[in-house]
């Protein structure tokens, strides 16, 4: 059933008793052309693009829990394309363009809201770094504006301009950035992929790979039996190393915990997305009214999906330093996601040394914004066995070649990215 205000109104007359499932509850078949491991945003988007753009419809997405149960359902929903280094800039802009038409493509309202992002700067050196970045964006045809203090003040008068330890000097603005409803992105891709024939199989945990005598991957073992596959794609953020280990691979990845926080709902306060340049704090306000915010990763390897108080305090200190009006707003919920931190802070989308096995991993804490782009380029790679033009630098061997894409310039120290 096509979703629209008309179908909604019609459904209301029958008490909404006739809505079909958003996606079918598919039972695993014995063989697929492509099996995608991981029913998160990236995996579901990959399946959608395989079916939609590359005509490969005999596709299954295997999810060990419920779709969107990983980082797709535990992030701060920020979408932006303000990257600086070759390889990143074009890719994230490709993704941004897909965000801008996602609702119409999927017939699902993912609430992509381009309310803008401002990255604040507090020193000349930070301003210069943002000028460099903003100019890269402009050279790549991406919108960017460098704001001075007065312009920032006009946009966000509630920030601490008067007695801050690190006074705000200005900010880098990308107006097209914003937020989207993270769960809806998952459901939207599931819905659209399902309509194209993709099987979405929940509660189906991959426990191993099957290989032929040449070592080629021929399928996966799962908690619901063996499933054959022409090709297997891994999009299992938070579990990349564990799944890769089933295929005997070690990855240039460490898994870290990133905490995120949401406050009680309050009336609209913060227009877009805001990042503090002198502390670890970024924030937006959801349509529901909660301040959604976060900061730095806890800094130690973790699969526990929870963090500790030092970072929680650090984040709130940043928040109060930036906008002391939030002192009385109550933190409602905190959670932790598992970030597969790559060694240069940049993802890996590549074939693996194992024939038939494809890797999409290492998104650090920035995977959400990449969802549509990642799906498209990963589908391209799987379908054509060649990297997509905008993902050709996300190679696995770049560390051996020294071709790191290190936006922060901190090297092979994942917890600093």
């Amino acid at each position, binding site marked *: 059933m096509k979703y629209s205000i008309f179908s909604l109104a019609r459904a209301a007359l029958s008490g909404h008793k006739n809505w079909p499932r958003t996606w079918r509850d598919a039972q695993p078949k014995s063989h697929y052309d492509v099996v995608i491991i991981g029913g998160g945003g990236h995996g579901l988007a990959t399946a959608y693009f395989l079916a939609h753009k590359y005509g490969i419809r005999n596709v299954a997405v295997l999810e060990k829990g419920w779709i969107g149960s990983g980082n797709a359902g535990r992030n701060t929903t920020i979408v932006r394309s303000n990257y600086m280094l070759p390889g990143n800039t074009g890719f994230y802009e490709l993704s941004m363009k897909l965000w801008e038409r996602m609702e119409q493509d999927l017939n699902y309202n993912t609430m992509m809201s381009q309310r803008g992002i401002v990255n604040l700067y507090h020193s000349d050196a930070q301003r210069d770094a943002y000028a460099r970045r903003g100019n890269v964006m402009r050279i790549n045809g991406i919108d960017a504006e460098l704001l001075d203090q007065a312009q920032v003040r006009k946009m966000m008068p509630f920030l601490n301009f008067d007695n801050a330890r690190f006074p705000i000097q200005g900010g880098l603005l990308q107006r097209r950035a914003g937020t989207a409803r993270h769960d809806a992105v998952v459901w939207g891709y599931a819905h659209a992929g399902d309509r194209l024939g993709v099987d979405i199989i929940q509660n189906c945990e991959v426990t191993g790979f099957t290989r032929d005598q040449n070592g080629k991957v021929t399928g996966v073992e799962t908690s619901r039996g063996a499933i054959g596959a022409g090709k297997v794609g891994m999009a299992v953020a938070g579990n990349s*190393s*564990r799944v890769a*280990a089933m295929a005997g691979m*070690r*990855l*240039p*990845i*460490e*898994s870290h915990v990133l905490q995120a926080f949401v406050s009680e709902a309050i009336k609209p306060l913060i227009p877009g997305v805001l990042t503090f340049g002198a502390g670890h704090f970024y924030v937006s306000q959801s349509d529901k009214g909660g301040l959604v915010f976060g900061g730095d990763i806890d*800094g*130690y*390897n*973790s*699969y*526990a999906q929870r963090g*500790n*108080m*030092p*970072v929680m305090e650090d984040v709130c200190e940043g928040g109060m330093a930036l906008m002391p009006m939030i002192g009385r707003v109550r933190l409602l919920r905190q959670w932790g996601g598992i970030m597969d931190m790559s*060694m240069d802070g940049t993802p890996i989308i590549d074939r693996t040394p194992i024939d038939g096995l494809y890797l999409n991993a290492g998104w650090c804490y920035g995977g959400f914004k990449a969802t549509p782009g990642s799906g498209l380029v990963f589908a391209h790679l799987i379908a054509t066995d060649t990297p997509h033009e905008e993902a050709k630098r996300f190679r696995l061997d770049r*560390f*051996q070649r020294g071709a790191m894409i290190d936006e922060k310039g901190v090297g*092979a*120290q*994942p*917890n600093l990215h």
Partner: protein
Amino acid sequence: MRIACPFCGERENGEFTYLGDAKPKRPAMVAIDGGAGAPGEAEAFYDYVYLRDNFAGEMSEYWYHGGGCRSWLVIERNTLTHDIKSVRAAPGAGAAKAGAK
């Protein structure tokens, strides 16, 4: 997390900085003559610098007590539960060992 520093006692994890897996061993310094290094060193360093086991479970890790005694510690910790099994000082941590070899 609470980490029992062998020199300072139990402290909260905010005083410590994490480095990572303590298992990889740095390839040894080699004698250099006119720029040539050891055979296979590129692969060995790739492995040392970039590849990780990244276990969900018990790991042995390097932590630095920067908010205390500046000792490097080797901590056995479970990455699924955050339980800490043991904390010991790195071989060269602590008081000067004159003439240590």
